[in-house]
């Protein structure tokens, strides 16, 4: 099902010659160095690499919370470099869904409110936002816990809320940053299974991880080293129900 090479009509994230340079003390660190890649609609990628390989930087750039030093990044055809801070924020609220390692729910809000946060910040929020949020809560299996505060939920449940939140704005890309890192292996498998289902529904998912087993669950893996693409591989796992098969 994962179709389309470069040039396909449904590119959701196109990166061209991206360089990201940090200045630390006196010297420069090139976290990304001439990175070019295109993610297509409906693809499920894992992004891997050792620490310092640039995967966090790539994630921040993809999530539009950081900007490239040079190069071009288009989200659904929109050039990020041209946007000011407000427009960038608006782009995030429309096109990006974040899933973090430590869930990052807002403690004083209940489940439903947490799911609704991205819509809250949209310039033109959809009228059916709350229905959508309820449906998503149902979808991730938390339909009966809408009024609970994050502190009252288990880690796995919190991550499900976070996934629902990442989907509520119907984003171009769902970015998951070590989304299973804080979970026990059983719960982690449940969350990965949820990603598989979302992928089957046609969502574009980019999963950043350093765990090989997690990375292999994705359709394809992009391996980074020193701010460049080191290796691109196809994983033949598909929708195997048993994550421990390898």
């Amino acid at each position, binding site marked *: 099902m994962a179709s389309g090479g470069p040039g396909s009509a449904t590119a959701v994230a196109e990166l061209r010659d991206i360089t990201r340079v940090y200045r630390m003390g006196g010297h420069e660190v090139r976290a990304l160095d001439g990175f070019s890649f295109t993610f297509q609609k409906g693809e499920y990628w894992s992004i891997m690499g050792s620490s310092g390989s640039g995967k966090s930087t790539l994630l*921040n750039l993809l*999530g539009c*919370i*950081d900007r490239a030093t040079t190069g071009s990044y288009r989200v659904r055809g929109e050039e990020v470099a041209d946007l000011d*801070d*407000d427009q960038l*924020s*608006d782009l*995030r*609220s*429309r096109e*990006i869904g*974040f899933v*973090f390692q430590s869930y*990052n729910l*807002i*403690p*004083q*809000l209940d489940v439903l409110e947490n799911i609704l*946060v*991205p819509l*809250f*910040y*949209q310039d033109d*929020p959809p009228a059916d936002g709350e229905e959508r949020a309820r449906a998503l809560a149902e979808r991730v299996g938390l339909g009966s816990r809408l009024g609970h505060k994050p502190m009252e939920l288990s880690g796995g449940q919190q991550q499900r809320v976070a996934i629902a*939140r990442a989907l509520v*704005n119907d984003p171009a890309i769902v970015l998951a940053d070590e989304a299973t890192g804080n979970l026990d292996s059983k719960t982690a498998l449940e969350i990965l299974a949820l990603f598989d289902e979302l992928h089957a529904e046609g969502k574009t998912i980019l999963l950043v991880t350093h765990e090989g087993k997690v990375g292999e669950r994705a359709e394809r893996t992009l391996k980074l080293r020193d701010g460049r693409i080191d290796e691109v591989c196809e994983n033949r796992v598909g929708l195997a129900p048993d994550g421990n098969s390898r």
Partner: protein
Amino acid sequence: MKRASLLGTVRLGVNSLLLHKLRSILTTLGVLFGVSSVIAMLAIGEGASEEAQEQIRKLGSRNVILRSVKPAEDVVSGGEATRISSYGLTDFDFDRVAETFPGVLRAVPVRQLQQEVRLNDRALNPRVLATIPEYVNVTGRPTSEGRFISTEDQLRFANVCVLGYEVARYLSPFETTIGKRIKIGADYFTCVGVLLPRVPLGSDQPAPGADVTGEVFLPMETARRWFGDIQVKIRSGSREMEEVQLHEIIVEAESDEAVPPIAAAAREMLARQHKQKDYEVVVPLEQLLRAQETKRIFTIVLSSIAAISLLVGGIGIMNVMLATVTERTREIGIRRALGAKKRHIVTQFLVETVVLSIGGGLLGIALGLLIPILVEKFADMRTIVTPAAPLLAFAISALIGIVFGLYPAWRAANMDPVEALRHE
């Protein structure tokens, strides 16, 4: 949608504040005390100055009062020396004021006698004042029963007296004193009238040497005939004899504008006529102006104190909000990552500080309205809460929230989302 989201932001802010109830309450204390002190101090200040002004107004703002004062060097120190000290205003002074000063509506001479007042077995030492019928017009104290001294009394040297309400009540608690024969000194006087009571005031003490606040009035001519000009004062073992023709001359001006020239003319005339400074010129209008000036200074001082406490309260809020911003760096990062613009973050934190300061302000208004009531009840001071005071205090507290919340909110909004997300 805009209004709904603002309401949502306020609700959100309140929720965040409720997450740290104790901290939020402590934070509001500064504003609370600031606001309540603004209101309470303004109320007390207003009450005190109103009281002072009322006392002055009671003397008559159009009046100039000339008073006899015993000169300092005349005070006999100890010994049993018996001498007559002669000082004070004279009938001559009175005639000059009444007949030659321009702008004088009326002038009233007053003599004060040291005499016991008795009805049957009840005796008192009130202020016994000899004066003329005009007195009532100048001081504006109407009679409650009977009449005041009349011109006819003056001409006939009638043995009549008019009692102040307090005196009348003491001498004859159960029935009217009108028509009763009151013994003043060694002679009897028929009571022809009773004056209305004075407006009770906090500091309304009996005049020195008198038992009650009330007075007894005699016709000037009658008094002069019976008691003469020389009075004997018995004071702690020594006898003093004083010869004072008039104790007071109350001059009423035709208009407020005429008051200062009359006062000036009186001072000049008395300075020329009297070898020693045995008189004083009291101008209630001047005192009124002085009281207003005092009130102005008072208000400035109190407002500065209140302003300082509000400033301290504001800094307290800012301090706590800065700490809150640091503490919630991660939340800010999350919100930014999920699409919050800078202004959303600014609004969120600003709303929290404004909710804090307005909450403190409202509690402060409640406390500030309570304090004057307690002060009035326990300290027996008059207080006046002007409607402007709570409104002003409320506006100030809201302003403090905005002013002192702006910087923390700005700091929060300008955090780098990547850094903020990494914050533990």
